[in-house]
């Protein structure tokens, strides 16, 4: 080191360089996830005629989205663990790859899975930008791409194709439109202020809520946007209070922003009954972090773990055993339902892949799976119920998002003509529909 010879400003440059390097190291040094083929459930090989469906599963199991990414993988694995990974003579083999939430890594891993491991199906990844990148690549090489969690509207709108299907979630705007409708009608609110994450998912979620609210006579008085890196929400809560609207709608991408927002909001003594959150702000992670003080908190989502249904009860029971007592959130449900869709196609048709697999998935309809009554539209997007949920404390000591209102057969167009809707600009701070 030559630092003793340099003048003060140059030391600063050296220091800044060191810090920058270190920060890079911190973000880039996530350990590569070793390929983990699912152990063979046994029996498959002995039948002689067995075939193997190899699944490449890309998820951010390290990095900032590690928890959601791991849950998405756990949901998938949970299904095969419960039901065995051999269906109708076809063995399902999964290779999990970590993309750390970075689209470049997602693409590299997708190419590795397709070229080296010769997978038949790609599942994932989780984040919108990574999902769009992988979907485009998968379509270009003719491999079907299933999306258990990714919410980006364009996966099944502007970028829709015969190989991409959203299996376990809904588009960002689609899942939140009923929230706006409910707030303006049953909720009885006339004006609203919104606080949404300042990137595609937040813009889409907010756009859904705003349109639902305005289409039913509500008025949005102010829209606030927070950077994803925000940890202290007090400054936004003060602005919400100053806006003086009847209600507040908040959309975050899950993780820390949910509890961090609630801590600030409740700390300032604001009324929880005037609050409506999106799916992920009130996911199980938030419920566990905040505890009983948020009993009664309302949110809108396509997933409701507190719904009375045999399918949901079965998943909850299985996941509790799997996780040591936790209740499954939306990411678990997404991974689980994706696995069950693949399994039911294999059950009916034996080994299929490519467009046939996607077509078979989208032809299926369900009277009551874990999400409720679900089917698919011609853009390969989920059409199904959206729930207005309320946090309820159950006898097992866990908090559940329990439906208080249900909007059935919600599609991604809010009554618009698809062609017309696709002609609009994509949602942003400036364009909310």
């Amino acid at each position: 080191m030559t630092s003793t010879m340099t003048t003060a400003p140059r030391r600063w440059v050296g220091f800044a360089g060191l810090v920058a390097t270190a920060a890079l190291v911190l973000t880039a040094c996530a350990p590569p996830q070793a390929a983990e083929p699912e152990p063979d459930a046994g029996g498959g090989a002995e039948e002689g005629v067995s075939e193997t469906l190899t699944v490449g599963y890309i998820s951010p199991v390290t990095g900032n989205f590690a928890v959601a990414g791991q849950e998405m993988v756990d949901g998938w694995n949970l299904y095969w663990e419960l039901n065995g990974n051999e269906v109708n003579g076809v063995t399902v083999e999964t290779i999990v790859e970590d993309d750390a939430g970075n689209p470049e890594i997602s693409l590299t891993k997708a190419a590795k899975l397709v070229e080296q491991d010769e997978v038949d199906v790609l599942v994932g990844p989780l984040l919108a930008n990574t999902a769009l990148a992988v979907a485009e690549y998968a379509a270009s090489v003719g491999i079907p791409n299933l999306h258990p969690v990714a919410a980006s509207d364009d996966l099944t709108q502007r970028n829709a194709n015969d190989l991409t299907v959203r299996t376990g979630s809904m588009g960002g705007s689609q899942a939140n439109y009923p929230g706006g409708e409910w707030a303006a009608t049953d909720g009885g609110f006339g004006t609203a202020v919104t606080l949404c994450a300042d990137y595609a998912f937040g813009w889409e979620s907010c756009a859904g809520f705003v349109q639902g609210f305005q289409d039913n006579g509500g008025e949005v008085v102010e829209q606030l946007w927070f950077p994803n890196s925000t940890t202290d929400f007090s400054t936004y809560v003060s602005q919400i209070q100053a806006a003086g609207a009847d209600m507040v709608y908040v959309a975050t991408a899950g993780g820390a922003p949910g509890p961090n927002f609630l801590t600030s909001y409740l700390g300032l003594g604001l009324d929880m009954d005037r609050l409506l959150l999106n799916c992920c702000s009130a996911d199980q992670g938030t419920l566990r972090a905040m505890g009983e003080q948020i009993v009664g908190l309302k949110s809108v989502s396509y997933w409701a773990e507190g719904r009375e249904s045999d399918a949901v009860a079965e998943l909850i029971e299985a996941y509790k055993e799997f996780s040591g007592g936790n209740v499954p959130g939306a990411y678990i449900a997404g991974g689980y339902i994706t696995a069950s869709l693949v399994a039911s196609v294999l059950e009916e048709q034996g080994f299929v892949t490519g467009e046939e697999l996607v077509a078979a998935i989208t032809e299926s309809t369900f009277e009551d799976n874990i999400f409720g009554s679900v089917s698919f539209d011609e853009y390969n997007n989920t059409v199904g119920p959206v729930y207005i949920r309320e946090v309820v404390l159950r006898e097992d000591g866990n908090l559940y998002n329990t439906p208080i209102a249900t909007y059935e057969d919600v599609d991604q167009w809010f009554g618009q003509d698809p062609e017309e809707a696709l002609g609009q600009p994509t949602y942003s701070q400036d364009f909310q529909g």
Partner: protein
Amino acid sequence: MFEPVFLAQQVLNGLSFGALLFLLASGLTLVFGLMKIVNMAHGAFYLLGGYIGVVIAGLTGNLLLAVITAVIVVAVTAFLVEVVLLRFVRGQELPEVLLTIGVSFVIADLCLAIFGGDPQNLPTSATIPGALMIGDLIYPWYRIFVIGVAIAIGIGLAFVQTKTRIGAIVRAGVDDREIISAMGVNIAWVFTGMFVVGAGLAALGGTIGSGMQSILPGVQNEVLLYALVVIIIGGLGSVTGAAVGSVLIGLIDAFAKAWIPELAYFTIFLPMALVLVLRPTGLFGRTA
């Protein structure tokens, strides 16, 4: 946007966020001032302290006990890191920094394995309930309490630094390590002591801070970044600088996000860039 209640609330928002930043940055700046180490494990000490604090507070409902336990556990961890690892690379800047990065990874991964990935907050039973009410102004007591803790720590550190023999040794160590060791002070143990105190402050920040914002994997990097920005603005090694930098960042962040939301991404970095351009040693830093 300019009503008195809104302004007062925003000032308190800025001050309480700044108070948390000060708890983070003071330990880092003290360690840097004496040892010339940028302790990249500082964020991990915050994370570990936060988790331990949350667990103990959940078990006992007592915030003081939670803070004390967290500080002790993290201080012992830091002691081991200093004595077993850091001593062997003393004076070699790059190995020192890389070593602390490694320690940060190990601690963060152990935390993930032990405490899981869910965000965790101080249970409400252990925080200070209720809110201050003056007319229309409502403000949570807990955040006011955080401001109080930061002021107390700041005064305490200033007192020790200027009025005690330990403080004199530390200040002498900052100025000239060789002379102070020639005068019979075992500088190696002064270093160890300072490293442990710095980590203890991080643990205190972690526990107190988890009542304001969640502890979860990844927080260690955010916290480290904030602390670095604050001490770059304030001047490396200066406690006064850390205090001024924290309050400045806290207030700028609170008001800019309300008045100029387009700048929301730069509220932390713009002041740093300006300081680096106009006064590269930081507001209270000394030229080398």
